[in-house]
């Protein structure tokens, strides 16, 4: 991991993007207006699902919370108490391997991670952002206020893609760190030999969220052209390929099959599958995050 002076990289986060971040909280609130309870963070007691216990009825209590079974059995008015239902934590985990760097991948993933954080903070919860690299999960940032976004951006500016991810080892480790019911946003290019079934490690944890799949056109939809010498960003291996139309079509088909597999397993564990390209505008990505994830 390379450290750099605390600053926001203007190449990763240009002024237009920062202006977009500044309006994320308001945009989230506006989009969530009228949404059913439980889909957004609230403060204090309430809710309907997280049962905490009973207490004596007091005037003014909502009659709908009286436990009539207890009254019939014990002859006392008892009301049910629940924990407040909040989106308390948004977990944003970013693939930090070298494969996220080329073809504009670093900037795209950094901006996507920032949008995820801003969305999590915008709904009033806490956000934790971490990095998956070499089989480990490292926390980069934690915040609970929209004003903490600067720290998130600085943390993202410091990081440069390097090394391997080893999702097969990193995801099971990450499972132990994720609290139940957290919003889980995994941001990766999924360019790993790991079995996509590793996502099933998150099953039963009450997680909801999305798999943000970074798909660069250079390998997912390559343009046919002349012969190229391709170099792997992680291993530095080279391969000379005559990239004609047929070869480009075959490569695209393999990439699509690979993405389909990851998408299938993500949906099985309750995660949305959100593919995005480096050229996708942050506004569109934000809209999808707010509408479909937050």
């Amino acid at each position, binding site marked *: 991991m390379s450290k750099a002076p605390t600053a926001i990289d203007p190449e990763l986060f240009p002024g237009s993007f920062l202006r977009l971040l500044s309006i994320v909280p308001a945009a989230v609130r506006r989009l969530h207006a009228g949404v059913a309870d439980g889909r957004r963070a609230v403060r204090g007691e309430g809710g309907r699902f997280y049962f905490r216990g009973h207490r004596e009825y007091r005037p003014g209590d909502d009659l709908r919370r009286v436990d009539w079974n207890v009254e019939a059995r014990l002859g006392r008015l008892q009301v049910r108490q629940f924990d407040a239902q909040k989106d308390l934590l948004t977990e944003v985990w970013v693939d930090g391997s070298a*494969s*996220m*760097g*080329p*073809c504009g*991948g670093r900037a795209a993933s950094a901006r996507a991670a920032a949008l995820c954080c801003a969305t999590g903070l915008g709904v009033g919860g806490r956000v934790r952002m971490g990095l998956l690299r070499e089989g480990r999960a490292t926390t980069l940032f934690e915040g609970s206020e929209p004003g903490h976004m600067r720290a998130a951006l600085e943390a993202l500016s410091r990081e440069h893609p390097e090394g391997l991810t080893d999702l097969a080892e990193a995801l099971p480790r990450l499972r132990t760190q994720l609290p139940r019911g957290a919003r889980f946003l995994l941001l990766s*290019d999924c*360019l790993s*030999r790991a079995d996509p079934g590793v996502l099933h490690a998150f099953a039963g944890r009450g997680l909801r969220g999305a798999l943000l*799949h970074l*798909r*660069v*056109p*250079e*390998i*997912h*939809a390559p*343009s046919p052209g*002349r*012969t*190229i*010498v*391709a*170099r*792997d*960003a*992680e*291993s530095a*291996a*080279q*391969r*000379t*390929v*005559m990239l004609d139309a047929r*070869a480009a079509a*075959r*490569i695209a088909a*393999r*990439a699509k099959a*690979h*993405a*389909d597999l990851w*998408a299938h397993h993500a949906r099985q564990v309750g995660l949305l*599958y*959100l*593919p*995005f*390209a*480096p*050229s*996708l505008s942050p506004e*569109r990505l934000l809209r*999808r995050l707010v509408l479909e994830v937050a």
Partner: protein
Amino acid sequence: MSFVSPWALIGLLAVPVLWWLHRRLRRPPVRELPSLMFLLDEDETKALPRGRRFDVELVVALAATILLALGAANPQIEGDDAGRVVRVVVAGGPDRQRAFRVQRALEGLRAALGPRDELIVVNEPVGDPDTRPQEAGLLSAARAGSASARFVIDDRLPRDEPPDVRWIAIGDLSARNQGIVAVSLRPVEQHAELFVNVLNDSDRKETVYVFADARGEQDVVVEIPPFSMRPVRMGSDPEAERIDVWLSPEGKDRVPSDDRVVLTRAPVPVYVDPALHARVVERTQAALVAAVSAAGVRYVRAADAKLAVVPRGWRGRTDATRLEIEAAPEGAAVEPIGTGTDEIGRGPVVRDLATAGTGWVYPVGARVLQPDEDVLLARRGATTWPVVTRTGSRVRLVPDPLRGEPAPVDSPFWPLLIDNLLAGAGAQRVVGAGFRAEGLLDVESSRLGRDARPFDPATLAAAEPLDAASPRSLRTPLVCLGVACLLLLWALPQLRRRLARSAKTHAAAGLAATPHA
């Protein structure tokens, strides 16, 4: 094509250097990809297609280098030729049936000309169809103006063909003519002897009957060998006022005008039109009177001459417009010059322009004038003064070719000019015993064309255009094309980058529209 700065062609050495650099440095681009996962199943290309790859950038770069190097060398190509100007003088002559031969010669000339060449045909008209232009006049007409080549179409070849004018002879080899070429009258005691010289211009022996109406009609039969002359002697009355001499040939006679001569004692009126404005007519009259009256100048029968100044613009009639002046002053010394063969006691009459090297104006071809014919000078054009006689004969006055202008009216040489004219008119006209001859043509007019030399296209090959073709420079178009190639070289990567960006955008849009989303 030539180069103004051929050293700039050294720039062409950059072409092989560019090619070598392209071969050496141009490799398949190394592109860093996130992963080779999806490429591993593709066959790896071993041999890189280097030699036969079509590279637009290389072609444009080579073109720019070549164009700029050539443009720096400033190549010049020859411009369009201005074309040659060929001046042809067609001599008139007594043979009126030669128009077809003239036309054929002109067609040969036209066929040898290029599309930009210009053919100028000058017809030398003859006032009298029985006379023919003189060589000097033809030369003068052919040498007039600017031309790349000069030709004369005539019946005969000149005696000394000049180097700058080519002669095309179209003479009719089968033509025949018999005529009187000389007449003289010599007093012998109580009577006079008439000598008549008859020419047989034919390729066969001809029999000619010669008649003379003097002391009764006489006739003599003479046989003349081919292309030769025979004199005929006949008796005559020295007191007669008029003697007619004529002949009757047995064979073909192409020119009948030379068959009759009249000997007469009538004076010779001479009318001179210096083609001047009316306001200088008086000065001209004075000059002419002074010329005629000048002491020490001997005139041919000057006492009988009449000089007249015809105002400018006169075109034919003389009776109403001519201003007669008495040219024979009282007491002027008049000396008969004797017979036609006598030499004039003064300087020779200049007859050939080739010998005229001064700034004077000479009568050219001051040939045989009839003793009683009017001599009229009418200006035609800027440089020629034809002298037309009433009977159609003519004498041409041409200015000095070195000056190209006629003599001024108050020129001190006017006396010499008039003297030459009169001397030329009278030298061959006086036939002796106070007679002068009318209707006597010169020998050349009686001699028909006998030469035939067709047009030789080789004589026209060496003719150069008057205006040399100006070379055209190709620097500007070459440099413009080179700069355009450089701009294209600069724009190609930009265009490719934009196209690639557009392709990525489309690909991203395709990804976003996948069903997984």
